[in-house]
Every structure is written in structure tokens, then in C-alpha cells.
């Protein structure tokens, strides 16, 4: 007997030196003993602890080459070519002998035993996974379209090229989507909760997941190396529609992982889309409008807010009217967002403002040390004082005590801070030193000397009488609204998922969804400050 790396089984049996290639009782005895002894050894030595599948004789014989030769006084051969041994007593002999000898061998050569059994367990797992995949496709193949999952609300159209499948997060959103869809060509499949992370799970575990099975069945393609058939895809647009919150983002990543890993071709052919439900609904009087995201809302507010307004600058020497004001305000908005990033890195807001202002007045300087900058501030602010020692600097600003360390200096020398400064300079160029008078139809409304107050004024004006609703979930929308904004072919915007660089995508999936924690943490740390949508 000899095991090798291959997956074939080669058994040669002889009786009295005659090649019995049809086998016979000696071969049966051999197989029975092998199965029994191996299995009982494995059980006794706890090798099957984490194995859910039973190991069959076939698994044990994978990669086995063996010669069985018996010598018997009165051989009886069967079969047309007389190459099958028929003596029934031989089975017992072979079995008993092999049982005993093999058990002894395994006992005395544990390393070999372990290797062989590991191989067999792998074989058993592979067999089980293959069977499940087969079952899945077979069960589906029983009917014309396959047994579609009960949760799927299918469409009337049969031509896959015209059909769309919406994968919706949760039953509450599924309800809205079902009522709001065009049943002619739009199908809805609600997915419950977070689906399995297929990057971490083995194939057989993935196949056992109910949600994944439902999904595969609905798509109609089958799954796995051999059974996946893109031609059977029932919808040519698979549209992922999740809530606009962070859990929605998570579900999206899980779905992307599934499609990328298991239905690569589907993504490659551009069948996968991401729906863009609106984040805001704004209502003024009876007028309703949906806005996709934060930026759109900002734009809308600025346009509304500056309507009929005049912004007088530089003591009335310059004036911007209506839409002219918007570019400057956008600069302030940009400045604000960079400002938040810098502050998020752990610097005091008030201090950053002071530093930027001083820098803008006196020219930008590298932050080799705090002292020169603080000196400049001290020159214009009486309530400012500071104290620097080797390790840290302490700043007193009015009643505030701010502690700064090496990290703070890094932040001040970072790209963000430079950007912040640039933005500030741009604003200075367009809005002057900040002193401004805002008026409308000849009436002065606000006199101020702060850019941020100018921005705040226009935003507040815009918000007056405006009802803004931020959608947390798709379930919040009426079916009609969902149809209007997200599902209607004329209005909606879809993101088509493309793979530009397979290697890089591969790597991203491994890092983000794989079972190694270390690289993931590194990735998060590196990208922590580029987060656009922080939801607490």
C-alpha cells in the first residue's frame, strides 16, 4: 500500500498470480478493512473533531495505490472473463488480517497515519461541498425556471436582458420596493440582515447559508467552479439597494465580496449596479425635492440662501449679488471641511483659527517649533499665553488650557494643514478680511467680520421655512417616493460596478474581508481621516 499526492485510486488485485482486474472478494475485504480501521483510528485519536462530514471508503482510497495478492488452494473465478475472485471465505481472511496489521501500523507510525487521514478528510470535505453545489443546481433544474425562493417578488418579463433584480436590505425596505416597483421588468429580493462574509467562510459553509442560497437561486446561475453558468443569469441588471447609513455600506461590501469572489464573470460583464437612493428630501411649501447627498444639499441651500441677497465687502467698496456670492461661500465650505479634518486630528478649534489667521497675515511659515507662531499670536491677543518645555507645550487662551505635544506639531506640518491654509488664502482673496454687510432689497440684515458667520447666515436663511428630512433607511420612504427617486428608469442614477485592476481589487478584498486582522487595522489607520460619511 502506498499513498501519493494524486487523487486517483489504483488497486491491483491478484489471486494465485492471476490478475483479477474485475476484483472480487479479496478486494471487497480489503476495502472494508481499510474503511473500518482508518475510521476507528481517526475517531480514537480525535482527528475528526472539527470534521462534520463522514469519511467514506472512497475518500480514504483517494491517492492510494495498493497491490492485493492472495494465494488460495481452490480459487473460483467468476465473470465472463473469469477475472473476478469468487471465494467468499477470502473476504473474511483479508479483512481480519488487514484490520489487525493496519491498526498496528497506524499505531506505530502516527505521522503517516495523520497525513493520510488529513488527505482523506480533505477529500471528504471536497466531496460534500461538491454534492451540496450539485444538489442546489439540480433542485433548481427540476422546474423550468427553478424553484425560486418564496421571498423573491419576480417580474413578468422573461427576457433576462430586460430584467432587473433589486437586492434590498431588510424586509421593511423590501416592502416599499415591492409596492413601488414596475412589476413588468423589476424583481425584488429582500435580504435579511448582514449576509455571510464569503471571504472568511469555506465553500461548504457558504452553500449552507440560507441568504446566500436564496440569492443564488434567484440569480439562476448556479455556483462553484463547474456549475456557474453566466448564460443562465435571469437578470442582466443586479442592483444593490441598501440604506444610506453605515450598516447599508457594510452590507454593500459583503455583497460586493460575494459577487467578486463567487460570480466574478457577472461583475466583469457589468451586470452589477448600485442604486443611489436620495439622502435628503426637502420641502418648501408644497414643493418637494430629493437630493442625493450632502454636497447636493449644500448647493441647494446656497442657491436658495443667496437669492436676492447682496454681500458688501471691504467697507462697501465691493459688492457681490445673488449667485455671485456662491463661489466664495463654497470656498468657505471647503475650508470648513478641511478645518474639521484638522480638528479631528486632535487640535483645539480656537487655536487652529488663531494660527491660520496669524499665518495669513504674516505669511506662511513651517512649523519647526511652536514658539515663533505663538509669539505672533501673543502680539495680537492679550488673553493668550504659552509655556513650552521639551515634551509638550501648554497654551492658555482665555479660560482654555490646551496641551500640545509632538503629534500636534506633526498635524500642523501635515498636508491637511497646508491645504487649510491655502483655502483660507483663497477666501481672503474673494471675501477680504471678513468684514461684510449682508443686505437684501436695501435692508441691512447682518454686519459681521467672520467668514463662518457669513456662511452660516446664508445657510440659515435658506433653511427658513424649509423642511429637511434625512433618510436613514429605505423603509422610511413611501413606495411611491422610492419609485420616483431610485427605481424609475428616467430619474434614477445607477453606479455600474467595474473591475479596473483585478490584482488590486483582489488585494483589497483580502485585506478588508479576510481573516487577518493586522493588515486590516493598518489599512484603517492609514485611511481613517478620509472617511466621508461618519455616522454615530
Amino acid at each position, binding site marked *: 500500500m502506498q499513498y501519493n499526492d494524486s487523487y486517483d485510486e489504483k488497486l491491483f488485485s491478484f489471486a494465485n498470480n492471476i490478475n483479477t482486474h474485475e476484483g472480487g472478494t479479496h478486494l471487497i475485504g480489503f476495502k472494508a478493512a481499510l474503511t473500518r480501521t482508518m475510521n476507528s483510528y481517526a475517531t480514537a485519536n480525535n482527528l475528526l473533531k472539527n470534521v462534520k462530514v463522514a469519511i467514506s471508503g472512497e475518500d480514504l482510497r483517494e491517492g492510494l495505490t495498493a497491490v492485493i495478492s492472495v494465494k488460495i488452494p481452490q480459487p473460483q473465478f467468476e465473470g465472463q472473463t473469469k477475472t473476478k475472485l469468487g471465494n467468499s471465505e477470502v473476504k473474511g481472511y483479508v479483512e481480519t488480517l488487514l484490520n489487525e496489521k493496519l491498526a*498496528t501500523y497506524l*499505531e*506505530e*507510525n*502516527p505521522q503517516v497515519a495523520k497525513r493520510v487521514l488529513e488527505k482523506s478528510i480533505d477529500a471528504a470535505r471536497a466531496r460534500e461541498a461538491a454534492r451540496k453545489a450539485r444538489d442546489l443546481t439540480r433542485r433548481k433544474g427540476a422546474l423550468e425556471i427553478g424553484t425560486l425562493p418564496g421571498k423573491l417578488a419576480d417580474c413578468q418579463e422573461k427576457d433576462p436582458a*430586460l430584467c432587473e433584480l433589486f437586492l434590498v436590505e431588510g424586509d421593511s425596505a423590501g416592502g416599499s420596493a415591492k409596492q413601488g416597483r414596475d412589476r413588468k421588468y423589476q424583481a425584488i429580493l429582500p435580504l435579511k440582515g448582514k449576509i455571510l462574509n464569503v471571504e472568511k467562510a469555506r465553500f461548504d459553509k457558504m452553500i449552507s447559508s440560507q441568504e446566500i442560497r436564496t440569492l443564488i437561486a434567484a440569480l439562476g446561475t448556479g455556483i462553484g467552479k463547474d456549475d456557474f453558468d453566466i448564460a443562465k443569469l435571469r437578470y442582466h441588471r443586479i442592483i444593490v439597494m441598501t440604506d444610506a447609513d*453605515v*450598516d447599508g*455600506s*457594510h452590507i*454593500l*461590501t459583503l455583497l*460586493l465580496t460575494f459577487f*467578486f469572489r463567487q460570480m466574478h464573470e457577472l*461583475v466583469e460583464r457589468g451586470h452589477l*449596479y*448600485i442604486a443611489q437612493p436620495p439622502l435628503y428630501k426637502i420641502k418648501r411649501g408644497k414643493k418637494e425635492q430629493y437630493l442625493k447627498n450632502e454636497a447636493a444639499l449644500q448647493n441647494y441651500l446656497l442657491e436658495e440662501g443667496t437669492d436676492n441677497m447682496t454681500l458688501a465687502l471691504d467697507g462697501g467698496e465691493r459688492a457681490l449679488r445673488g449667485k455671485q456670492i456662491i463661489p466664495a461661500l463654497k470656498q468657505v465650505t471647503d475650508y470648513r471641511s478641511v478645518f474639521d479634518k484638522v480638528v*479631528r*486630528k*486632535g487640535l483645539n478649534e480656537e487655536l487652529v483659527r488663531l494660527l491660520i489667521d496669524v499665518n495669513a497675515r504674516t505669511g506662511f511659515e513651517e512649523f519647526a517649533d511652536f514658539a515663533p507662531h505663538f509669539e505672533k499670536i501673543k502680539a495680537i491677543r492679550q488673553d493668550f499665553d504659552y509655556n513650552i518645555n521639551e515634551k509638550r507645550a501648554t497654551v492658555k487662551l482665555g*479660560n*482654555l*488650557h490646551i*496641551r500640545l505635544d509632538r503629534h500636534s506639531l506633526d498635524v500642523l506640518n501635515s498636508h491637511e494643514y497646508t491645504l487649510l491654509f491655502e483655502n483660507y488664502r483663497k477666501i481672503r482673496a474673494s471675501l477680504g478680511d471678513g468684514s461684510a454687510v449682508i443686505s437684501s432689497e436695501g435692508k441691512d440684515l447682518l454686519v459681521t467680520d467672520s467668514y463662518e458667520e457669513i456662511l452660516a447666515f446664508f445657510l440659515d436663511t435658506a433653511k427658513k421655512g424649509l423642511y*429637511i*428630512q*434625512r433618510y*436613514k433607511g429605505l423603509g422610511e420612504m413611501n413606495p411611491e417616493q422610492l419609485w420616483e427617486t431610485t427605481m424609475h*428608469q*428616467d430619474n*434614477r*442614477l*445607477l*453606479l*455600474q*460596478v*467595474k*473591475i*479596473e*485592476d483585478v490584482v*488590486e*481589487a483582489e488585494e*483589497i*478584498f483580502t485585506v*478588508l474581508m479576510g481573516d487577518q*486582522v493586522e493588515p*486590516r*487595522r493598518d*489599512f*484603517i489607520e492609514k*485611511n*481613517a481621516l*478620509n*472617511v*466621508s*460619511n*461618519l*455616522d*454615530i
Partner: protein
Amino acid sequence: MLNQTNKISVNIEDEMKKSYMDYAMSVIIGRALPDVRDGFKPVHRRCLYAMYDMGNDYNKPYKKSARVVGDVIGKYHPHGDTAAYDTIVRMAQDFSLRYPMVDGQGNFGSVDGDSPAAMRYTEIRMSKLAHEMLADLDKETVDMGSNYDDSLQEPLVLPAKIPNLLVNGSSGIAVGMATNIPPHNLGEVVDGVVATIDNPAITLEELMAFIPGPDFPTAGFIYGRDGIVSAYRTGRGIIQMRARARVEKQKKSERESIIVTEIPYQVNKSRLIEKIAELVREKKLEGISDLRDESDRDGMRIVIELKKDENPQVLLNQLYKHTAMQSSFGIIMLAIVSNRPKVLTLKETIRHFIDHRREIVTRRTVFELKKAEARAHILEGLKIALDWLDAVIELIRDSKTPAEAKEGLMEGKFADPAWLAKFDLVAPANYSGMTRLSEIQAQAILDMRLHRLTGLEREKIVDEYLEILRFIGRLKDILGSETEILAIVKGELLEIKDKFGDPRRTEIIAQTAEITLEDTIVEEDMVVNITHTGYIKRSAVSLYRAQRRGGKGKTGIKTKDEDFVEHLFIASTKDYLLFFSDAGKVYWLKVYELPEGGRATRGKAIVNLLNLSQDEKISAILSVREFSEDKFIMMATRQGVVKKTPLLEYSHPRVGGILAVNLDEGDKLIEVALTDGKQDVLLVSKNGKSIRFREEDARPQGRVTRGVRGMTLEGDDVVIGMEIVNEMTGSTIFTVTENGFGKRTELGEYRAQSRGGKGVITIKTTDRNGCVVGIKQVTDENDMMLISDQGKILRVPVSGFSIIGRNTQGVRLMVTETEERIVAVAKLAEKDDADESADDDSLDELSDVELVDGE
């Protein structure tokens, strides 16, 4: 129609990154990790704030949990109701939080893992302590932020008079990181914080004098300081928690029971009991006769009844080893600092808390100052009005409308000399010129009630004014001085300690509690069987029941056909067995590590128990009770090298085995023996030479040495055997050759020579005899086993051969066929004199049949 859809292409990689980072950062910053300042995750903060908002105070009636949950998820926390309710429930459980934040009415679950009653049944209100977390919230002490739909404001952090992060701990799994902070004793932490305020450069050692370690609500023990120190120094560490148990004598019987009264933190009691029961069922824990949970309203009490004569300490150790009665707590002090996750040391945690409190106190003082100044402003106006009382009254009476009166006051019309003259009034002595009032002051004067004009009330206003001026001065002093602020922070902390401090519950034991397997083993004598082909097992001595003389005997071990017992001895479970391999390595096994089996079992092959490399074979086995100093190990190799090494050198077992002797290339270790240093050594070579020398001749050497020459060999001769000889009466040397010949020779015939000689002839290796296969020192009672290369085994009693001279050929021991060779000789395991019954009937059978066919 279909192609009208607007579509934009996105790269899967970018979409993945964006969505994943959104999720990851939100979970890290805003969901799973606590803020270093108040020790709360947003959900906790929102629950408490909602309760505060609806006036659900500790001294007001309870409110239905469902109402609170509704408020929490409706106003601040747009997630599922279970998330909010579970949070509230945990904050009410006195076994989860060291200092509960919620005072619950109804069933809030138990350490048995029972689920709490549904939220429509239970009622809650804030605990007294929770108020301290929220104190001064209305004084603009913390930043507020918009809730999820911009309709309400919620605090981004709580003022937190209590160092809650340390006191109640926290645990959570985010993405790529997790936190696990154990709870602490409030009084101790306050002392630690105060000490840090007093001495900002305090060292960890000094700090740990105040905060010796975590204090769990479930009490119990912590074993080992190292984990605590590591956690406090680096932010990460593992501590061992243990249940509190004591041994009680049963009243009636002799039996003892283990009583468990406290279990480790976060251990589910009913699951613990199930686990013990399961171990008993699976026979992994023996010696337990009964297991009851006698917990009641007086507290926890798990009774583990022992069988008679069981050693409770050993059993307790087994329980610690195999069940959650000893659990570890992996500390990761991860918290959010300035919107970033950070692993913190104890001192950093405390410093962040101090900074937070300083900010709160400062902001509160600023707020109070603003309020006091406003009040002072009003009082100032009132005082003016009182001073000018008559004029003011006239002014008001003279005015047509309240607005006119107000204007008059603001203009200070009443102090105009012209106007005064009109009413025949004079200005008060200490006033001159114009007096103007602010709008607020004027309004306050107009709002004043007439009774304030009584003498007493007027005095009061003046007093209050002076009082408030003093107060303002005091507030300004505070704001001007860092030390004042810190003194207030300190004072408030000590107040909290007085109010809520309680004695420590968890006991900390300095030494670690590494429970080795050894502690869980009962020391008892075992019979160890080792067969010639390397099967080994142990069985209880009691299995060898004493039989009467002439009894039939019992099988001690079931062997393969061609196998037999070579070693049989009694050893304690805690004795060591040393296995020497031919490659010169030594391996250890404790007797308890051997497979235990009944009499009729075969045992296990040694290869399964040791980490042998390929082709390595065991050449000798020694049983050692203790590594005493005066014992030596004598080794002999094929090339005639001997080495004597103190036994002590082998007293540090390692799983992978260690080198016992430095062998020359191609040499093999053939025999090892335990000596006392005063014996003689006899070496015999293949060609029939033998040498006997005094053990003293070989000086003791270290473990990894080559040894010294024991015998000088000629040509291709090799050493095949070594015996440690003592002049025991009747002891003879039994020599066997390849072709089945052999003899017995008196020990006295071998004279001691000096080490390293060529030796003398022990048997003539003629063509008839062939080479020597083995020698053994035997007595008349011994039986020998001869094994041929064809698998035949012959058992011969030694007494059957007469003793003949040294330089002879010997007699036929076994008839061999042509080409058949004897390959090994072994002494049958001695009959155990101490235990008459240790006979082996399979061996008796063997002796009846002279020749056993190996096939």
C-alpha cells in the same frame, strides 16, 4: 426605454474602500468603543440622557422601560429597540456593572444567564450615581451636537464626575480592534486620580499603591500581578480570575464538599455547572458524587460533593483547570481620545479624566460667573432704585405707559436735579450727577413688587448684592488659578468617594496560579508495562488483585503475538520516565501521561507519545522518582564510549527532548543505566570481548559531552551490551550468540581492569557460535527471551543452564535453522515480589511452548 438610465461607472475597489471605511470608522468611533472621558459608548450616553431629559430621577417614581426605550430610539439612537433595551438592562445589572447606572424594578436577569423580563414589564429610573455622571449638564459644561435628524441636541460627552471608564469598565468589538477594560473600585480609582493631581509625575508603582488592580462586581480572586502591571503599563495584559471556594466537611458522613460562593466576572453560573456535570459524565473529572446549585436570596452557593477519601485540593485544581472557575480576562485599554482610538496606559487614562474634569469645572465656573454677573447687574439696578426710591416712584407715577416709565428710568430722568426739584426731592448723599440704568435693570425695577420696599427687604437686596459681588470675586479667582480648579476637581472626587465608595470585593493574590496538569493528578502507584516492540501502558495496582499462592495469575498486558513484556515496574503517577534513543537524545514522560488501560489492553506505541524523528529508536528506559544528587546515569555506545553524568543534569524536561550525549558520527547509544557511582561496569563486544571496570574510573561529565573510552575495540568490533554489575549472590552473566549458543558465567570471573582496555574473552566466537548478540546479568529466577530474525521467540529459564567458565564456547540454547540468526535477547520482566499477583499468565503459557511461531 431601458437605456435611458443614467449610469456612472465605479471601480469595485474604490466602492469597496469607501463603503468599508465608512462602516469601519463609524463602528470604531461611534459604536463599539467608549470615550475616554466619560467611559460611555454613544448608546449608553443616549440612554442616560433620554432618562435625564424625561426627569426619570432616582427620587421619582419608576418609569416603564418601554417608554424610555421609545424615547432613546426615537430621539437619539436610530437603531433597533433591543439594542437600547439591552444596554439599559446591562446598566441595571449589579453583576455586570460594578456601580450600576440604572435602578431597575423587576427581573433584570441573573448570573445564570436568564434573560430579563420584556421591556413592557420592567420599570427603571436613574441610579443616584447616574446623576453624578450627568451633574452640571445644564451649565454649558459639554458640547452638544445635533441628533440624527437635526431636530434635537444631545451631549457629545457627559460631565462625568465619576472616572467611569475605569470604574465600570467597558468591552466592545469594533472593526480591526477591540476593547476590554475591567471594572475597578471607585474609592481606589478616586485616590489614584487625586494622587495624580497632587503629583503629575507619579510613577506606576506609586499609582498602583492606590489602585492595586481591577475589582469585579462578582468578587472572586485575581491571581498574579504581572498581568495587571502589564495592562497598566502598556494597555494590554491578561489576568487570571478565580472563583472563591472552600471545603466543608459533611455533617453526617466523612465526605467533604467544595462550596463555591463567588465566580469569575462574566461567567455564566448555570453554564459552569453544566460544564462540570458534563466533565463528570465524560469521566474527565472523577471523584464528584453530587453537584447542586444551592443559590438563594442569601447569595451564591454551588455545592460539589466529593466521593469518600477524595483529595479536595486536587479536585479543586482540576476544576480550575478544566472549567470557567478559573477564567482569564484579556485587558485591552482601548478608548476614543479626541476622536481617535488609542490604547491607553493607566496613567494616560487618569490624565485624560483629569483634563476632562478640569474643562468641566472651568466651563461650569464660567457659566456661573456669567449668571452671577447678570444677577449682580440687576441687583445693582434695584439698589439704585431703592436709593432713589421716592424719585423713582414719582417717575413711574408720572409716566403714561410702562414703556415711558422704562425709558425714563433708562435715561436716568429721576436723577436729573431739575426733575428732582419739581417734586421737592433731594439726591441721596452719595450720588452726584447722572445715573443711567440698563434696559434689564429698568425692567427689573418695574417688575419689582411693592413688598420689596419694606425696610427688611431693602436690606436683603443690599446684602444679596454684596454677597454676589463676593461670589463673583471668588469665581474670578478660581478661573485665574489652575491650582484652584484642580482643588475643586479633587474636592468633588473625594466627595464622590465618601458618598459612593465601598470596600473592594475582588481579592488580589500576588503569585500566579498556573495550574499545571500535575496539580490535578492524584499521586498513586501504577504498574507500568513496556513491551519489547515498544508498547507502553499503565494500570492501577489494584487491578492486580492479590491471589493465593499457586493461583493462576493474570494477564498484565495484551501483546501482539511476537511481543512480550520487557519492563514491568511500579511507579508513582508523578514519577518520570526517561527514554533514551539510539540517536543519543533523551525524552521525558510522566507516568500519568502514559495511556491507562485495563489488564487486557495493549497500550500505545511509544512513538505516539514522544516526539521522535524518523528512524530514531528507543534503546533504554529509566524510571526516576526524584532527581537526587548522588545518582548517575551511565551510558554506553556501540563504539565503546562510556559516559557518566549526574542525574541532575536531566532534571529539566522539554517536550521535544534534549541531547543526552554527543555521539560521534555513525555511533549509536546502546544502553543506559542508573547507578549510584560505586558500581562496576561490564561492557561486552560483538566478538566476545568483555571489560569490567570501576565506575569511579569514569569521571562525571556534563550532559552534552562525548564521554570517554570504555573499551578499546579491534577491527570491526562493536559493543553490544553493558551491565552494571554488583556482587549480588547468585548473579551471573548470561551471554548469547547469533547461532543460538550461550552460557552462564560467574560474575567473579570477570576481574575489574582499568577503563579503556581491550578486555578479556567472555565467550569464544567460533564459527559454531557466531557473534555475541547480547549479555544480561541474571539470577536463577530469571527467564530469558531469545528472538530470531525469523520472528521466533524462545523463553528459557536461566536455571536450566549450568554455570561454566569465562573462556568457553557455551551450550546450545535454541535450535536455529540455517540462515536463521538470533537478533535480540531480553530478560523477562521480573515477577514482582512486592505484589505476588503480578504474574503474567500469557507468559506462563509461553514457557510451556518452547517455540512460538512468530507468523
